[in-house]
């Protein structure tokens, strides 16, 4: 398949290669103890993907338990207010447990249960959405579950901590380093290294060593597959055509890759990822890996090679975002590759722009979005007026915002 805006044909189906690479990105940079576990996971995953019974069981759970397909909503008042492109929302916030994270959590938990003979799951969480999704899947399937979470994140996402505990998961506080997502991943990996024979690491984003980036992408691609058909079907609430632009927030990038992937070969559709601009790029307190030319460079963090925010000595930078789920120093390797080959673009939204997006969606559409997803909306406030009324934007509304009320109350209180 060729692309009009690149000089060479790009085969999107050929990544990752057998060593887990997306061009120069990806790979398996882990301690030796984990290498056999990654090989085993890859084998189990490839086996499951070709197993009709497994795929049918997953589809059944996605339908009867998660509530898929999630709806497509036309954001009429937001579109009118901005006066440009027509805006559609893919409602992952309506998936059971409140975010797209359940697609991957359920997929991996079922994979472990049916194909791997392990009994225990460890996971990391930033915003708590992946932790809640994992705790949910573990409760559903009767699996022991431990979630690692930075103490800073536990404080700003208290309701999700309690949710996980209600679901029978043990939440372990991580007070090393920056006490956020990156440190929670370190601890989850340490647990996995120690208990690898009984334990599966249920990584929550399109990150980490191969096969995670590809496997998580595949489990999340259901978002884009549904949206692809819904957009073209007025009976499903779609405009009867493909969108001109798809916008999604990018932390590790699983919701973005999930909605982008089924559209990669649709040349007319622009794909835009929105990173966390925090207090602004010049300020340094952000998590915009692609937007910071000084600190965002090729690096290896937690098993994968990608763009990493780091200092000149290769030490990983401390990031900041109002949303815990985007507060991470690296980005999924496939995003780095898609950007290199010119298929997707990346921009960022500051905390302030994000809160504007958050408020707009609350007041104009009656939807309280997760602060992560509000980054995508914040950018749409800028983008939609530059487009014409016959053009269409599809936004991946990756999660709901109940968990963020404390943060927003504090932010609005401080700003007003």
């Amino acid at each position, binding site marked *: 398949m060729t692309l009009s805006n690149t000089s060479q044909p790009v085969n999107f189906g050929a990544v990752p290669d057998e*060593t887990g690479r997306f061009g120069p990105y990806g*790979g*398996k*940079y*882990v*301690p*030796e*103890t984990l*290498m*056999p*576990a990654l*090989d085993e996971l890859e084998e189990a995953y490839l086996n499951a993907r070709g197993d009709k019974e497994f795929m049918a069981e997953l589809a059944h759970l996605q339908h009867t338990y998660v509530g898929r397909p999630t709806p497509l909503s036309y954001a009429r008042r937001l579109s009118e207010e901005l006066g440009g492109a027509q805006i559609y929302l893919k409602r992952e916030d309506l998936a059971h447990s409140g975010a797209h994270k359940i697609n991957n959590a359920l997929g991996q938990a079922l994979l472990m249960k049916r194909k791997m003979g392990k009994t225990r799951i460890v996971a990391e969480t930033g915003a708590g959405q992946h932790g809640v999704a994992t705790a949910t899947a573990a409760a559903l399937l009767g699996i022991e579950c431990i979630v690692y979470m930075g103490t800073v994140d536990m404080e700003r996402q208290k309701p999700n901590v309690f949710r996980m505990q209600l679901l029978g998961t043990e939440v372990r506080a991580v007070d*090393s*380093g920056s006490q956020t997502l*990156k440190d929670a991943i*370190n601890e989850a*990996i*340490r647990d996995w*290294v*120690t*208990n*690898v*024979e009984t334990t599966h690491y249920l990584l929550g984003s399109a990150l980490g060593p191969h096969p995670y980036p590809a496997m998580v992408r595949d489990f999340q691609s259901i978002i884009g597959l549904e949206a692809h058909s819904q957009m073209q079907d007025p009976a499903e609430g779609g405009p009867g055509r493909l969108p001109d632009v798809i916008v999604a927030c990018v932390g590790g990038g699983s919701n973005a890759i999930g909605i982008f992937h089924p559209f990669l070969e649709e040349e007319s559709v622009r794909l835009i990822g929105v990173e966390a601009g925090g207090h602004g790029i010049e300020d340094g307190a952000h998590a915009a890996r692609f937007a910071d030319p000084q600190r965002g*460079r*090729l*690096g*290896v*963090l*937690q*098993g994968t090679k990608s763009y*990493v925010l*780091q200092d*000149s*000595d*290769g*030490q*990983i930078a401390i990031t900041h975002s109002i949303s815990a789920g985007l507060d991470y120093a690296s980005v999924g390797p496939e995003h780095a590759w898609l950007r290199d080959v010119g298929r997707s673009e990346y921009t960022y939204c500051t905390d302030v722009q994000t809160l504007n997006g958050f408020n707009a969606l609350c007041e104009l559409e009656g939807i309280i979005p997760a602060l992560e997803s509000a980054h995508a909306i914040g950018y749409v406030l800028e983008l939609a007026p530059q487009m014409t009324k016959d053009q269409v934007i599809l936004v991946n509304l990756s999660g709901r915002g109940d968990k963020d009320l404390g943060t927003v109350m504090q932010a609005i209180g401080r700003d007003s």
Partner: protein
Amino acid sequence: MSGVERIEQVFRKLNQAGSAAFMPYHAMGYPTRQQSLDVITTLAEAGADLVEIGIPHSDPLADGPTIQTATYAALVGGTTVVDCLQMVRELRAKGVDTPFCAMSYYNPILAYGEESFVAAAASAGVDGLIVPDLPPGESELLEPACREAGLATIYMLAPTSTEERIRSVARHATGFIYLVSVTGITGARDELPPGLPAFVERVRRHTELPLAVGFGISTGPQAAKVAEIVEGVIVGSALVKAAGSDAGVEAVRSLAEQLAVGSHNGKVV
């Protein structure tokens, strides 16, 4: 003599004497720059046959709490990769001639530039390189650079390693092979794992290289037990903990002497 040859020579001599090598690790810059230099000098005086020079990283995902805390303190204290190599240079200038293996996670090396790092490390006086998050399949740039500079490329194997991975590591490793004695992160443990002899046996079938065991060794008697079955005894966390204690360098000296005796006498000829 190249770094690889210096390391080979150490194992050859000890083997003739029926001893195993005592191979301590220390985190550079911990507790302070000067104290870390004193620790390395002390380890050499106390009978270390090879020293692992720990280069601090912000995200040490193979390390337990002791080394995490120490390397974090070193980073907060301003330790850089460049200064770690400068410290090696200073130690060599002072006459410390024990072989050194630099131990660094991959990202600081990548940020430095793989080939430049290897050249700088070799010229500073480093003899080998251990990169815990860089298995053989991912080191297509670093490994040739090490060959060129005469540095040993030391890879790890774990009890979980398959025959295929053992063969791959055996093909790529020079100097010695680092066996992780348990699945898990670094840190002192009370008992030697029961599966260790069988694991060592499994690796021996694929390599003639000296084998060194690390992860969890903290006492002289433990070192002696390990020395009965392999050529090298690696000790990290226990010594780092000693270096950070009130007794500091003297605590390091006393523990290192016991570990050296255990390593050297453990092997019964």
